[in-house]
């Protein structure tokens, strides 16, 4: 990969749901990311190529795509890591509707995030004194384990349960629910258990672990979902007694 002497075959999804892959010859550079490759195609080959990105440094979660059939954050994925026989295949995220080219419709992902009880309900108003939170407390440590989620939807695209079950809320939404459940400043913990106990709730997870395997921030949504299963099972017996 010295200068522009070498090229690679990059197949990119073009069109909507009924689209197809189109192959481009892209020059290979040192330290090149998949997002660099996609940007090169848009700048030098076809300005109509549609894709999303913002920060380019793995913070915003905008640029996730399928790369050689696996979900990845493209701004932090080096070409040399994924190049197979001089070729790369880039497609829109799995398990989401395609708007155009590499832009997937994120609405189902974020709708489920809200449906899983992901909206914070404060337990105090701004007029009350700030309640101290022990950063080393068990609840806070459990909540903190999931707060670095950037909502890139890589886990959602990786999840085979989502692929088979449209109603399933998915790993990111459930991890968010588990984070809020363990947040002592959240005022609707019972509401979260109700939200994740329905038809598409946490109990549909088969613990296959693709979410944890593919999470670019090395979070563990599968453990979060296991936590929700434990707490809902406890609440099941508590409610029966009460």
């Amino acid at each position: 990969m010295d200068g522009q002497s070498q090229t690679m075959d990059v197949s990119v999804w073009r069109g909507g749901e009924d689209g197809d892959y189109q192959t481009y010859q892209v020059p290979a550079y040192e330290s090149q990311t998949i997002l660099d490759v996609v940007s090169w195609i848009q700048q030098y080959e076809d300005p109509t190529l549609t894709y999303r990105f913002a920060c380019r440094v793995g913070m915003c979660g905008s640029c996730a795509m399928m790369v050689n059939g696996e979900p990845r954050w493209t701004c932090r994925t080096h070409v040399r890591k994924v190049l197979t026989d001089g070729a790369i295949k880039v497609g829109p995220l799995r398990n989401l509707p395609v708007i155009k080219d590499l832009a997937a419709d994120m609405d189902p992902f974020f709708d489920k995030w809200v449906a899983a009880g992901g909206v914070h309900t404060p337990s105090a108003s701004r007029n009350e004194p700030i309640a101290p939170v022990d950063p080393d407390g068990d609840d806070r440590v459990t909540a903190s384990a999931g707060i670095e989620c950037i909502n890139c939807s890589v886990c959602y695209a990786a999840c085979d349960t989502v692929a088979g079950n449209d109603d399933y809320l998915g790993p990111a939404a459930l991890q968010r629910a588990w984070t809020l459940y363990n947040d002592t400043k959240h005022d609707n913990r019972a509401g979260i258990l109700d939200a994740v106990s329905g038809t598409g709730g946490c109990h549909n997870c088969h613990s296959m672990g693709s979410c944890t395997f593919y999470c670019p921030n090395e979070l563990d949504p599968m453990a979060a979902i296991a936590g929700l299963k434990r707490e809902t099972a406890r609440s099941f017996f508590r409610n029966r007694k009460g």
Partner: protein
Amino acid sequence: MLNLRLYMAQRITALIMAPLTLGHIAVMIYAVQGGLSTGEILGRTQGSIFWFAFYGTFVLAVSVHAAIGLRVIIHETFGMRGAALTTLSWSIGLVLFAMGGRAVMAVTGGGV
């Protein structure tokens, strides 16, 4: 396609089946090693409330557990949902219960 109730039903029936399966295997090994004939085995099981309860509970747990498990597989594989899925799940459970119940009655019933 699993809500909390179905999930708990499947997990609780799994908990029930685990010791019953071990008991069943132990009885089979005992019966084979002791060289008991079919007639001798039936002589001990028929009319026994204990064996009726043992295998009756087993059949009930299997019917519930398997029906819920197949419900998930059918939904995720074929996309079936709603009333059709519920009807099929119940049908699977009832067929398993009827078949298992027939076997339990044959082994632990009055002895015809």
